[in-house]
């Protein structure tokens, strides 16, 4: 475990990608193959099944630390991480252990079916043979959730450095449903695999938010204007009649979206489409919330496929008839894209490809109006692309712009606060907000982001001094502080007491100039919703 603990410490101590890659490469050079594989698995959210509940872990930790459960719980709320709290509170190790990372994982797995007493003996024995950092990691192996800021990309870079193989090839190999229990490092990473080339995606071209007046872009007719779709960016590859789906962040997600297997039925082969994976049903996009149900799942059930089917809203073509066409201009690329999508009409079975329609305007004033209207329709904004643009790599200014709608905002009163986790442990960062409803206050949203660390610290001091009631980790505070809460969309909801659900709520700023009496009302929120609903979607 020591080797892995050292790696973890190094990764945790730096925010620089280069240093993380260096630490990983060094680790991959020295670690046993099975440990390497498990490390990759853990950092890509594949963790062993939980065999011990956290309820027991807390109980046993308090017991061996010789403290009452309430003191353990209070400590946990302040530390903000269960695995860490246990590692700090349990006594120093009394013996040593030479078990490796994989040995420990297997030992944890083997607890399945054991009695509570057996599990307890195993866990307490582990705590007394591991040092603080190792204990922390051992607990994480049980509870899951390694947050070390190691992205898939960082791992891919390190493995590419180790093996000399191209990053895209490595990325492809790491995808899918492999498990360290049935896979070997050599087979997964080192051996040659003829499929590597077939699946290779292109880097995405990303747009900046527009940073100038819209009129400065020149003539409207030189720009292709589309709705900004609210899904996830994706690239679909069809080569040798095989389908690969990549998401932005170069993650291979073919298994998550089996709908696209139907592309095999298209007569055309060897092309790469860029577009937006959208939840889409009865001729209309569903909400992003619906898509989230799909994003999280590795294995998609038939029921879910029927409930929330996805399509690709296609907006660009990067490869056509086996040729890289990124150097052609947008007009020409789109011509080929349209051809592909047209051929689908000749096929009887449904092919989930839609063309992102061009919106036509005579002048910039019309474009501005369309953006205003987009907000009321719950649409994220517009995309502006120069017709002459070639397809570039990464985020580039000048030819592609996104023009997002301004968010909705309301002034709200902080009434509940909870401590954050991880980096924000010990600070109150998780807030619940209320608005006025007659002479009552009604909660309508939570928000966690948007303030600086210094502001969170200031609010934390306020919370400590102004707590009215404590419900476990939640503090009810004097309704005094007012924040401007911004959100992208508002919808009716049966689950929430106030009858509303916000999309992406965050704190825009702390309104120190406002008293609680001056905060917004439920009526205001409801009128925002009505305004939106009175406009039928077209």
């Amino acid at each position: 475990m020591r080797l892995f603990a050292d790696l973890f410490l190094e990764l945790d101590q730096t925010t620089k990608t280069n240093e993380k890659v260096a630490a990983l490469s060094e680790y991959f050079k020295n670690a046993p193959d099975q440990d390497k594989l498990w490390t990759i698995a853990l950092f890509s959210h594949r963790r062993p099944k939980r065999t011990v509940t956290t309820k027991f872990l807390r109980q046993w930790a308090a017991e061996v630390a010789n403290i009452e459960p309430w003191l353990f719980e209070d400590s946990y709320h302040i530390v903000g991480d269960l695995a860490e709290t246990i590692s700090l509170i349990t006594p120093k190790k009394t013996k040593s252990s030479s078990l490796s990372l994989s040995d420990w994982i297997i030992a944890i797995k083997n607890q399945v079916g054991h009695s509570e007493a057996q599990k307890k003996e195993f866990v307490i024995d582990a705590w007394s043979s591991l040092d603080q950092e190792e204990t922390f990691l051992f607990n994480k192996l049980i509870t899951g959730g390694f947050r070390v800021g190691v992205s898939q990309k960082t791992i891919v870079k390190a493995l590419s450095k180790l093996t000399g193989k191209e990053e895209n090839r490595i990325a492809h190999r790491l995808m899918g449903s492999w498990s360290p229990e049935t896979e070997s490092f050599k087979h997964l990473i080192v051996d040659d695999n003829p499929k590597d080339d077939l699946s290779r995606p292109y880097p995405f071209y990303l747009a900046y938010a527009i940073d100038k007046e819209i009129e400065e872009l020149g003539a409207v007719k030189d720009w292709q204007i589309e709705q900004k779709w609210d899904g996830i960016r994706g690239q679909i590859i069809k080569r040798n009649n095989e389908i690969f789906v990549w998401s932005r962040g170069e993650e291979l997600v073919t298994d998550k979206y089996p709908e696209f297997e139907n592309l095999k039925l298209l007569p055309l082969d060897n092309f790469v489409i860029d577009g937006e994976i959208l939840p889409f049903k009865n001729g209309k996009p569903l909400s992003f919330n619906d898509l989230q149900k799909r994003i999280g799942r590795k294995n998609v059930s038939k029921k879910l496929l029927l409930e929330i089917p996805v399509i690709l809203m296609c907006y660009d073509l990067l490869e056509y008839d086996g040729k890289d066409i990124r150097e052609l201009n947008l007009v020409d690329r789109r011509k080929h894209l349209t051809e592909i999508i047209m051929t689908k009409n000749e096929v009887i079975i449904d092919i989930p490809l839609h063309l992102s329609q061009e919106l036509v305007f005579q002048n910039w004033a019309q474009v501005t109006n369309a953006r205003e209207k987009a907000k009321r329709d719950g649409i994220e904004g517009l995309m502006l692309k120069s017709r002459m643009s070639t397809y570039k790599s990464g985020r580039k200014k000048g030819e592609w712009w996104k023009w997002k709608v301004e968010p909705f905002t309301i002034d709200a009163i902080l009434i509940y606060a909870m401590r954050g986790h991880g980096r924000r442990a010990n600070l109150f960062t998780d807030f619940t907000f209320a608005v006025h409803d007659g002479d009552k206050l009604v909660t309508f949203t939570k928000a966690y982001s948007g303030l600086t660390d210094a502001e969170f610290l200031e609010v934390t001091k306020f919370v400590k001094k102004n707590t009215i009631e404590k419900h476990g980790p939640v503090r009810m505070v004097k309704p005094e502080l007012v924040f401007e809460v911004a959100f992208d969309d508002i919808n009716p909801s049966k689950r929430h007491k106030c009858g509303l659900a916000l999309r992406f709520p965050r704190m825009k700023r702390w309104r120190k100039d406002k008293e609680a009496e001056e905060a917004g009302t439920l009526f205001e929120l409801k009128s925002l919703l009505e305004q939106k609903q009175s406009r039928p979607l077209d």
Partner: protein
Amino acid sequence: MALIELNKNGIYCAEADVYIDPWRSVDKALITHGHSDHSRPGHKSYLCTHASVPIIKHRLGSKINIAGIGYGESIMVNGVKFSFHPAGHIIGSAQIRAEGKGEVWVISGDYKTENDGISGCFEPVNCTHFITESTFGLPVYKWKKQSKVFDEINNWWSLNKSLGKTTIITAYSLGKAQRILHNIDSEIGKIFCHGAIAKMNNAIRNSGIPLKDTLLIEKESKPQDFAGHLIIAPPSALGSSWMKRFKNVSVGIASGWMMLRGARRRRGADRGFVLSDHCDWDGLNESIKATGAENIYPTHGYTQIYSRWLREQGYNAQPLETEFEGESLEKKEE
């Protein structure tokens, strides 16, 4: 009325008309140590240990009416006997004992049990009433031995040196900075100090306490002048424009708060070293036990939680709401 009570000005002994570490202006103040939340400006007279005198004068000006007293020496004020005892917190720090009306009180100020080689060695003082700090009064706070922490710091500095990097460690100007200076391996390279720390060091040296020689950061110096060397800076320097003049740096923070991963990561420093001038959990518990006191008053820190714990151990414990800044995540943290 008890011998010691709390009023709006601070911890008060009515019998002697004397305050201990008061936070508003009073006539007679006994001061445990030189940190700004314990020794405040505006009192008519100050009494502290000999070693604290130059420190407090440096901070509050040389015109204040201040007198020094030795450890273990006592004075009588209106029938109450006061004496000062080593607290091991920083240079000159003391616990203050007060005896009168058949009661013995000890006000700990801030204290730590491990001898850091420069702040004196904490001595438990027998009493019936003990006002204790509880900055780190949670069972998750357990310090490593100082020698181990300094091994870590020295290794980090050596590694940085081999990479041609400048090492910057942040530590409170009074106390932690001198502790680091005293214990660091000065063979590794040169040691520079931020101006605020250099001035404090001089005040301490002038009072006859030797400290290692350090270098000043000259205006005209270039980033490469510091490559491989160590700079000791106050926590307020983190992210300041002063800091930006140094290039290719590795920044470390020395503080008890660095025990928690969340606090380490939030600061955005490269390294966090768990080095505190306060007691850890075991230190608090052992010290309280050693005083023999039955009545315990935790002041700053996790006072509610710690008091409850003490009550469960059979003590008569109540938190005392002072204005000392024990639990603080800001720049002036200890």
